[in-house]
């Protein structure tokens, strides 16, 4: 299991959005690291976040829960968390859990940044 989360200083600012790149498998063992990073960013005022999941090949329910929590925290601060994901395995997990209705999911970072504020 590998999870690479760049330091906030290394996150690329894109149109005011901060891009966080995750790679590897986000399972119950790795998810706490992702949660910690997302909470830290949002509490520090970085509440417009794109989480790039293009390098992620597995996510479990704990990983999904971390993303749900990040969306809640960001939206409570008038921001949002948007996902970049084209991996059909992950997209189907979002689909079968119904979380594709909760997350704003884009094909690319540019598309994520360019989404309307309602996620469409």
């Amino acid at each position, binding site marked *: *299991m590998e999870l690479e989360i760049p330091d906030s200083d290394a996150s690329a600012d894109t149109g005011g959005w901060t891009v966080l790149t995750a790679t590897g*498998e986000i*399972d*119950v*063992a790795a998810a706490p690291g992702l949660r910690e990073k997302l909470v830290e960013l949002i509490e520090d005022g970085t509440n417009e976040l794109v989480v790039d999941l293009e390098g992620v090949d*597995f996510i*479990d*329910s*704990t990983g*999904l*829960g*971390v993303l*749900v*929590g990040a*969306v*809640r925290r960001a*939206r409570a601060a008038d921001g949002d968390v948007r996902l970049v994901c084209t991996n*059909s*395995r992950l*997209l*189907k*997990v979002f689909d*079968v*859990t*119904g*979380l594709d*209705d*909760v997350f704003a999911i884009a094909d690319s970072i540019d598309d994520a940044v360019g989404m309307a504020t309602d996620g469409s």
Partner: protein
Amino acid sequence: MAEIHLEIPPRLDYLAVVRLVVATAAALDPPLPESRLDDLRLAVTEACSNAIKAHRPEAEDEPVIVSCHLESDCFRVDIRDRGPGFDPDALSELPDTNDPERLQHESGLGIPLIRVLTDDVTFEPADDGTIVSMTLDRPDTEESILTP
């Protein structure tokens, strides 16, 4: 029928090993379709993480046991822990995804995922714990829940 038996310490960092071993066993002839291996990897991860969390406080020095049963018409994996047990039917339902209240819930997806990803699942009390038994059928035409 062949069996593959795996004993792991009750540690979450062993889940990747369990995924690898179980999916490799399920890929043996006659293999499950690749798409169903994705279902299996996720279902096993959910069940085994629950087992480890329940087992660890009760029997930290004892292994969680994962048994793969390679049958001609199905692949079955049993996960046995020594936790206090639970009633899967007593779990409360999550709010609808269109309900803003849904964002208040970061957990509760594991058991529903297991149910939707497998063809059959049982949660049976054992003498000193719980056995979760998950079955995936082998028909060539079986479609994966996770298949696009």
